[in-house]
């Protein structure tokens, strides 16, 4: 996955993501594609969660999946989740759950609960940073005021790091793939460097949903695992999603 929160020169916040999923789950030699990724694409839906006939939040989901990986609480915050691979991974949390130790929360259930119940960027940030989880994760959160954008790096138990937009330091965007931002990505899977290069080339004065789509359309940020691209603008409450394809030649991840 690749998630980006960026602030333009007028203080508008944009949040966009590529959802990549299906690594090592069956390679279709004939079509040069991942079997599960291709099966997931027709399941992509946009959802408008309503209570008392009013929108509470919106999300891009796979039909049949009740947790949230991508969502927006209009005029309040935007949220995406990226996988964080670790030996202390989710399977340990699941085993603990099976054996009755149930003090952690499933990560996609937490994101849904935050989208449903949190009423501010700060409240969402606190919940995402402090709630005990079953699996490690990256939460990418955007707000509706200048400087409100961050990557929360989580282990199952702790918030390891919170990396914020900082305009004073010239950091007008934060960008997360599937590696801790203070470490080098795996050399075989470096989507971060090309994505950052394209963001810097775009410049803060030209950032928009349109140019974020350009960044997320550049290989290898776009790759064979990419199921969809979502673009969100918190101030307008907009969420738009597109099913993607990566024509050959294209990286498998």
């Amino acid at each position, binding site marked *: 996955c690749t998630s980006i929160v960026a602030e333009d020169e007028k203080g508008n916040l944009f949040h966009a993501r590529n959802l990549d999923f299906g690594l090592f789950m069956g390679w279709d030699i004939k079509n040069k594609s991942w079997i599960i990724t291709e099966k997931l694409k027709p399941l992509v839906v946009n959802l408008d969660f309503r209570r008392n006939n009013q929108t509470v939040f919106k999300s*891009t989901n796979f039909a*049949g999946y*009740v947790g949230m990986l991508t969502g927006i609480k209009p005029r309040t915050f935007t949220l995406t989740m990226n996988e964080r691979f*670790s030996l202390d991974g989710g399977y340990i949390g699941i085993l603990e*759950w099976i054996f009755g130790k149930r003090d952690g929360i*499933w990560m996609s259930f937490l994101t849904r609960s935050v989208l*449903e119940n949190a009423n501010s960027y700060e409240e969402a940030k606190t919940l995402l940073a402090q709630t005990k989880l079953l699996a490690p994760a990256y939460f990418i959160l955007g707000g509706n005021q200048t400087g409100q954008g961050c990557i929360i790096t989580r282990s199952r138990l702790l918030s390891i790091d919170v990396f914020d937009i900082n305009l004073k330091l010239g950091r007008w965007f934060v960008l997360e793939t599937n590696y801790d931002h203070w470490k080098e990505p795996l050399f075989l899977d470096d989507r971060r460097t090309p994505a950052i290069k394209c963001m810097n080339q775009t410049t803060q004065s030209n950032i928009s949903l349109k140019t974020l*789509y350009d960044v997320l359309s550049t290989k290898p940020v776009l790759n064979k695992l990419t199921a969809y691209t979502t673009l969100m603008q918190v101030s307008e409450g907009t969420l738009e999603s597109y099913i993607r394809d990566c024509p050959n030649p294209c990286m498998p991840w």
Partner: protein
Amino acid sequence: QFIPPYTEDCRTDMYPPKGPTFKGAVSWYTVDLDLPPGKRWAAVISDKKAELVSMVQAIKDLANALVPSGRLIELVDVSLPLMANTLPQPFGEEIKGISAVSGVPLGEVVLFNIFYEVFTV
């Protein structure tokens, strides 16, 4: 670049989405949180039933390729339905509702819903 990692110059003018990297638009559905959890996903799943069944079948094919005896899927079908009862509300009931509308066995819907956690290793 025609050798891996197939990097390219930063794309421009890709929006509005079109061309070979755009596979289609995404449909909108409403999920009514005032409905009982078991009924919230009925409209979505009714529309996407065939696609859900096909995706779950692909997972089963992969599992059966790994464990040809079929014991892995047997385990999913026997054990994971029990997990649905332990999931926090409203998620457990929503998952049961999805299984009922789609006809996909409960354990297999639970498996799909915990996929992301499982694959963090």
